[in-house]
């Protein structure tokens, strides 16, 4: 066990700090809601040219072409967080579609789509979930019927983030209705969002914002070449994408940063002349969460070391989404309790603290427990793949043949 960094790593950290200090004026004030702002795209281009984002993606596809180095990636994440500077664009095109395309796409597809995606010129949305296919994603019904060299798509997707501003969708669509089982009937298709027959309707959530959309397809025509991988292989390809999404969630440094904000709040808030942090009942609650956040941070250090060594502590990795989203929600819950009646206010306005961010997080973080595989699905994964418990026998009903 050695928590020190090598001289090379220390030097890299210094280089990153100096870069952040020198370029503080170029950090974009807004990243844009649906599409990246010009400032955000410029920042992204600068970071790619420095080798700080899109690090391991080959230069010919618009990346930095660096050797994989998990410690450098971690140092970048830490230093950018400390400087409150965004480490490039964060969207589903970059975090999910690009890794999938690198693994499964044709050379032509990689050349056409990766570079504009990385540089924020092409925005993607994900078309997986449907109203009748949530946790049971493989039961999806949106269909693609062959017509000459094209597919004709009909159906509906839901929980589609950024669909309004998106240029393209990567989607799971049923292309083989007569496949031997439901998994083998699904293909991974690329759908331009300006195709005739697509209708996007915003889906407002309880936070009051339209974080998601519903997307309706009526006889939408795309060329059959807009497929990633082979026909009927979409389920396997999508699972590699979901793996990227789950790995993306839950940064333990972020949880400790939220604990810091919560402690600041509890030092600032007083009831009957006593700071909440000095009241034992309240203090015990935040200390409990601080201990949990520390455990998660060290757990992440363990996973980081394992990743550097090429080891895969599978159970340890599987628990991260479940525990990190739960912890975030507990932090927001305590903050709302700390604010009392004020915690029940929404948004900015009279009496509100931090522009109402805690109540918003309380609601948003509940969504995070559900999104990307619900807590209950995570527990199934931990139980079955982590602990080796038997699967639940499936009902032999129509449409559920395996």
């Amino acid at each position, binding site marked *: *066990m*050695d*928590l*020190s*960094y090598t001289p090379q*790593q220390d030097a890299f950290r210094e280089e990153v700090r100096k870069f952040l200090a020198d370029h503080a004026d170029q950090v974009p004030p807004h990243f844009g809601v649906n599409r990246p702002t010009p400032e955000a795209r410029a920042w992204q281009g600068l970071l790619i040219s420095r080798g700080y984002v899109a690090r391991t993606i080959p230069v010919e596809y618009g990346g930095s072409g660096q050797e994989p180095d998990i*410690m450098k990636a971690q140092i970048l994440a830490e230093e950018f967080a400390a400087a409150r500077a965004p480490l490039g664009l964060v969207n589903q095109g970059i975090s999910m579609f690009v890794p999938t395309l690198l693994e499964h796409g044709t050379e032509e597809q990689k050349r056409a789509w990766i570079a504009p995606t990385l540089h924020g010129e092409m925005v993607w949305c994900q078309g997986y979930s449907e109203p009748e296919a949530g946790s049971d994603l493989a039961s999806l019904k949106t269909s693609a019927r062959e017509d000459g060299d094209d597919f004709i798509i009909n159906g509906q997707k839901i929980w589609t983030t950024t669909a309004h501003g998106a240029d393209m969708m990567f989607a799971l669509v049923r292309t083989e209705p007569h496949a031997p089982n439901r998994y083998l009937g699904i293909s991974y298709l690329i759908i331009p969002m300006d195709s005739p027959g697509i209708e996007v309707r915003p889906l407002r959530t309880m936070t009051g914002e339209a974080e998601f959309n519903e997307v309706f397809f009526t006889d939408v025509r795309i060329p059959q070449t807009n497929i990633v991988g082979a026909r009927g292989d979409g389920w396997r390809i999508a699972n590699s994408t979901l793996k990227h999404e789950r790995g993306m969630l839950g940064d333990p440094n972020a949880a400790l940063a939220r604990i810091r904000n919560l402690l600041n709040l509890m030092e600032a808030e007083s009831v009957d002349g*006593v*700071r909440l*942090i*000095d*009241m*034992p009942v309240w*203090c*015990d609650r935040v*200390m*409990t969460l*601080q*201990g*949990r956040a*520390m*455990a*998660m941070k*060290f*757990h992440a*250090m*363990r996973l*980081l*070391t*394992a990743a550097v*060594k090429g080891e895969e502590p599978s*159970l*340890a990795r599987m*628990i991260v989404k*479940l*525990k990190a989203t739960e912890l975030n929600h507990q932090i927001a819950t305590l903050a709302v309790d700390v604010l009392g009646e004020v915690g029940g206010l929404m948004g900015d306005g009279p009496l509100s603290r931090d522009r109402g961010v805690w109540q918003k997080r309380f609601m948003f973080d509940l969504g995070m427990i559900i999104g990307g595989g619900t807590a*209950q699905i*995570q*527990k*199934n994964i*931990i*139980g*079955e793949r*982590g*602990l*080796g*418990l*038997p*699967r*639940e*026998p499936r009902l032999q009903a129509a449409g559920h043949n395996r």
Partner: protein
Amino acid sequence: MDFALSDDQILLQDQVDRAVGELAPVERVAAYVRDGDRAFATENVWQGLCSIGVPGLLVPEASGGLGLGILDAALVAEIMGRHAVPGAFLGPVVAAPLAILRAGDAEQQAELLPRIAEGSLRIAVAVSEQLSGTRGDAGVRLVDGRLSGSTQMAVDIAGADLILTADHAGRLVLVRPDAPGVTRLALNVVDRTRDAACLEFSGARPEMILPGNALAAIGAALRVVLAADLLGAASRMIDMAVAYAKIRNQFGRPIGSFQAVKHLCADMAAELEPGRALVWYAAHAQDVGLPDAALTALYAKAYLGEAARLAARNATEVHGGIGITEELGLHIWLKRISFGTQLFGGPTRLREEAAILQGYLGTSVACGRAAAE
């Protein structure tokens, strides 16, 4: 940065696991907790631990020990918890060598450390008031070289040659359990794999007074090592519950295929696992003196206490009715977790200390403490 166990540490755990598995197989431990044949713990198990060098874990090599650190001691403790090994560890293997190394003078070190390392000198630890708070009028006073007062709990007292205790000012003393003026009141500990006694002193003369100050270091080490013991005990209970859920059939299929049971298992495993990294970090922090050593020791014990208790509860529930029987033996680990969670400070007490350490609870608790002094 390398946050992982070394090959030597993995080997150490394997060796202790194999030795302890032979020394204290589950049937033998079950018979011990049922019949209370004290000699099994104080003679057989202790001699077995001596034969693999466990008493000398923290004693420097120059004094005949293994010269290892708190992390290594924690890794051994995890195995002790996994096997619910009966008998002494926390006092003679952890507290005593640390006290003498950090607070003893050269003469005391030369006299005691080699005997601690070879296991011929066993030292119980009695620091309840310092780690768990003072109950009632307990507390030890050292006046004119004589001990008076009482301490709530001396741990590992069976077979002990000396007792390490501390007076109200934090001075560490070693006193013989059979010295005139020492009264021992055996306690009925729920965890039969451990033993403890309440001590009363009336003018007892200590064998030695340690000149230095090591109470904080001993407290942190005891808590981290006990957290590791809880980790081992809890992981054993999870393993047993998962194994049972795979073979026990109800409604025509293994109960582990029902999500209600599967999620009980997933919950306890997911809760316990981050505790492993927390124990590693807290132990390593003691060894190299990291700035958050004190805070992480508190959180390691608090977190593992609660995570282990959840595992004890869920693992028992997964077993259904058989889980609460004496015959199955699951209760051996449940009770080890029950006692271990409270010993040297329970979770709420530890979080209170964590708050005070960070400058919180300024008015209420600190005033209460000051009034009590």
